[in-house]
């Protein structure tokens, strides 16, 4: 009996790993090849690749998570020739994710039984919004890299965030397993 449950555990672990890996690759490619070239009104681009950070399994170890977030950001940076701005933003939101989870989901998170597919769309959107705002603020501050252009930074953050949040929510609804 013990063995059997272990076996299931390993299987479940493997499927989670493969899932995350697939998500990583497809989100980076989607970002690098399609969404970086949207340029709506010539400067608004969505960055929904942070879904990887947002939806990463919670009970996993945090060092690995932060490292993966760094790799994710760096891969997007390689596509955009932007130094390390995506990496910096991703590492930061990965690091500050636990308090944000706690804030947006409250008691469910305390019980450690959270499953993103079971959370209602409203609080999921709150969660994505907070992550996105943090991410974009760091991203565009580092991209513009000039404090006197703070208006430009805020403008880019605001408009790109709206775009990103909508896309994140849509993706998470589209690709979540059906609720029973």
């Amino acid at each position, binding site marked *: 009996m013990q063995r059997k449950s272990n076996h299931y555990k390993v299987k479940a672990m493997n499927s989670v790993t493969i899932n995350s890996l697939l998500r990583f690759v497809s989100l980076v*490619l989607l970002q690098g*090849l399609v969404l970086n070239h949207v340029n709506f009104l010539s400067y608004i681009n969505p960055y929904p690749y942070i879904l990887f950070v947002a939806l990463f399994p919670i009970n996993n170890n*945090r060092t690995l998570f*932060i490292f993966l977030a*760094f790799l994710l*950001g760096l891969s997007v940076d*390689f596509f955009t020739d*932007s130094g390390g701005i995506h990496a910096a933003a991703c*590492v930061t939101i990965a690091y500050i994710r636990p308090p944000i989870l706690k804030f947006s989901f409250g008691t469910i998170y305390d019980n450690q039984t959270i499953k993103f597919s079971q959370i209602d769309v409203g609080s999921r959107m709150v969660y994505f919004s907070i992550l996105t705002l943090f991410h974009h603020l760091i991203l565009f501050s580092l991209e513009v890299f000039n404090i006197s252009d703070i208006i430009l930074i805020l403008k880019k953050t605001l408009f790109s965030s709206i775009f990103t949040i909508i896309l994140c929510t849509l993706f998470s609804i589209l690709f979540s397993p059906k609720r029973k």
Partner: protein
Amino acid sequence: MQQIINFVLRNKTFLLFLLLFGLSLFFTIQSHSYHKSKFVNSANFFTGGIYKTTNSFSQYFNLKEQNDALIEENKKLRTIIFNLELDTLRVSSIDSTLLGDHYRFTDADVLKNSYSLSNNYLTINKGKKDNIKQDFGVITSKGIVGIVDNTSNNYATVLSVLSKKNRINAQLKKTSHIGSLVWDGKTEELVQLVDISKFAPVAVGDTIMTGGQSAIFPKGILIGKVESFSLDIGGDTYTINVRLFNDMTNIGHVYIIENMNAKEIKSLQSQSDE
């Protein structure tokens, strides 16, 4: 010692975060300084290869526009050739024949182009194998595009004119007042020409071209038209808004210019600086 190890173990997440954040900050700062050989760029085997694959599909979508641009360019070149034959005597003594010796042109496809960031890069499908090096100029038939930044074996990244790092030497076409071309990061259609003397007769609609004072671009490559101009706060120089001839959002095919004498010019300049 034990305590230090304990401290590291207890705070390993935070320390890892600091380390990785510091590393990305380092990459970022490097990317904001001009022409530092960078680790993070899209001219590598991997992203370059991916861009090349996708470009081989997407380039079909604007074939018609590319054809039109080529026809336009052919027309222009033919006009020049036939006019040359008419007054060979006058022209043969100046640049066109010399141009062949001093500058070498290579053509390239643009694999990736961006214009929404504050430092924009293009990725092109020529690299070290085709003798492309840093500081080569990049143009299209309509005008200036940028300067080669990083190269790998098969690919290179080009720092676009739409970048806050670039300062390209430029001048008015009708007089020889020179200035520097910079970008304020606001719109992809306008760049700024600064440090033009207030005695220059600037008018809206004037043509701006490269100045030939740098060892990168030959003199006379078109840049754009004067859109508006104003005196600097100091009152000594003009800041001119220049509307680019190139549509920077739609660039398919470019030419890379190698100045064969760049090395000689540079060493001469550094000698006289000493």
